[in-house]
């Protein structure tokens, strides 16, 4: 049963990815007859004849000179070979190369935010649930009501202002040489940590509070379940009940929420990277947007969506491992 469920989930994820891929292909083609117009909008001082020539060149360069279905096939075929198309930048670098350069730096931020957020979030949530109604709990409640209304980029600005400019504890802007000077030595790694501190901190605050609140609610919900009463009636020790019975069950909704939160985390990171001048995919994406570099934008979008799909798939599969009840029924 479980195996077939896993197969079903994998197949479904592939299906979703295919749809996302199609969307990625068609979104830049919305509202224009010729994709070349989108890629190279008419400039003011250009005659029609000149523009026509430029369009023709664009078509040839980006493969728009064939029919749309054929373009789609070429696009899909390229994807299979790891080719996300050609960037509109000067020098026509491949989208893939551009992304691969930035990807690790983005992952540094998102993975550390995620891990720290999860660890602290779950810890705080469990404590709050255990001390329900006492100050630990009310503090979390109040913190979450406030934090939930503070956008990450505002926190980032505040941190950059106070910790960066005023107190000068952490660099307010990312060191531009961080990437180029990077090597696997202590100083370089420390420098990355130092520079990543503020961006990670500003994204982490929100995710800690979010996970903590979720954990608290999940733990309390499980505490009210009948089987916890059974465990108590069995005379089990509090620690056994807490870790073997309560937490294990409370993990289930938490795992699901992790998958769901990833899309938001990735989106929010675009702004944070911009504030701290962090050389990740977010800034790359904004650069692409400013230059109307559609192949690059759509490439990044596809990659980010792919990551999200993968993350949701993984959390789903972990869920299946944790919860023996999951069978074939549609859980979502």
């Amino acid at each position, binding site marked *: 049963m479980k195996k077939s469920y896993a197969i079903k989930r994998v197949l479904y994820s592939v299906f979703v990815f295919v749809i996302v891929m199609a969307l990625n292909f068609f979104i830049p083609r919305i509202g224009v007859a010729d994709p070349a117009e989108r890629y190279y909008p008419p400039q003011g001082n250009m005659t029609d004849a000149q523009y026509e020539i430029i369009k023709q060149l664009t078509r040839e360069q980006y493969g728009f000179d064939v029919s749309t279905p054929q373009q789609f096939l070429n696009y899909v075929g390229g994807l299979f070979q790891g080719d996300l198309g050609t960037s509109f930048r000067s020098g026509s670098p491949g989208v893939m190369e551009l992304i691969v350069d930035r990807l690790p730096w983005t992952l540094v931020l998102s993975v550390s935010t995620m891990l720290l957020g999860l660890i602290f979030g779950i810890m705080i949530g469990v404590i709050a649930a255990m001390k329900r*109604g006492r100050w630990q709990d009310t503090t979390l409640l109040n913190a979450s009501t406030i934090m939930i209304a503070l956008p990450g980029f505002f926190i980032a600005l505040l941190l950059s202002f106070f910790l960066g400019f005023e107190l000068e504890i952490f660099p307010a802007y990312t060191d531009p040489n961080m990437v180029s000077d990077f090597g696997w030595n202590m100083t370089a790694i420390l420098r990355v940590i130092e520079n990543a501190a503020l961006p990670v901190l500003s994204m982490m605050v929100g995710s800690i509070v979010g996970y903590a609140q979720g954990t608290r609610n999940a733990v309390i919900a499980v505490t009210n*379940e*009948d*089987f916890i*009463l*059974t*465990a*108590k*009636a*069995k*005379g*089990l*020790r*509090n620690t*056994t009940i807490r870790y*073997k*019975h309560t937490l*294990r*069950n409370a993990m*289930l909704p938490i795992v699901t929420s992790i998958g769901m939160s990833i899309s938001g985390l990735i989106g929010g990171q675009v702004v944070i990277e911009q504030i701290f001048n962090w050389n990740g995919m977010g800034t790359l994406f904004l650069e692409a947007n400013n230059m109307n570099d559609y192949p690059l934008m759509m490439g990044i979008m596809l990659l980010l969506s792919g990551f999200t799909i993968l993350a949701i798939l993984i959390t789903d599969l972990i869920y299946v491992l*944790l*919860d*023996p*009840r999951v069978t074939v029924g549609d859980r979502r």
Partner: protein
Amino acid sequence: MAEQTLTLRNLKVVFPSGMGLIRAVEGVDIDIGKGESIALVGESGCGKSVTSMSIMKLIESPPAITKMDQLTFAGDDIKDYTPSQMQSVRGKMMAMIFQDAMTSLNPVMTCGKQIDEMFMRHMQLNKKAAREETVKALELVGVPEPRKRAKNFPHELSGGMRQRVLLAMAFACMPKLIIADEPTTALDVTIQAQVLSVLRDMQKKHDVSLLVVTHDLSVVANIADTVYVMYSGKIVEKASVKQLFKQPFHPYSAGLLASVPSLSDTAGHFVQIPGSVPHPMKKPTGCYFHPRCHYAKDKCKASMPPLSAHDDGRQVRCFYPLKTNGGTSNV
């Protein structure tokens, strides 16, 4: 009286709520002798489950406020036991069987593991030895292929099997007292008969005291020696099953018995108790049952009758008990 398993005196439980105190249990006394089987009968909201949970000290405070004069279990005064002292009493000395086995078993743990825990906690066995005991325990309650079943998760078993797993768990350490809270309510009639017969056999064979909490008189008839009838937080009648079924003294017990359709009934009309159970926040003055009682007089409206003793250890909380003469149970 020499071998008393449990003595409970004057248990009172209230729950605070936004509108005042909910008076769940109002001074309940219960005595259970060794090997005796007691039933606590009442309808939903009468406080029977709260009473049973209070005996195991499983009522959480906050929010509940519990007070009792005496709680003696197997010769020990456990009234003031600390939570950690209670932990070594629960499961080992007294165990509980819950109503809905589906929700009462941890869904992400195999049934076997959940029983293993009992042996590991109370008998200090290692995992392997505990599993051997678990298999034996499952076998005792009539689970076929116990070794295989132990590896199943609760949702993979049928309702009857799950209930047996709960039975095995309760009997695991051969406690002195087992409290069964509506042990068969969620089951089908034929499965109910199976589970009850297992429970009864186990109880008799191992000389365990049993407190069955139920609303179902057929369960009572099947399993209990002595019955406490509860109504709205108070015991209204205590009698042996035979006595009660032959001649109930309290009008409520009489109504309850009469409203259970029986195969020997020939009339197409059922004897009914008018009205419904009072809300725990809006209990009537005087005897709680008087608004629904055919025999209520002014005295019943004014004050609560005491629980008075009658012959053969019977107790009734009624000013005008239905004595044998009239046979007035037929209202």
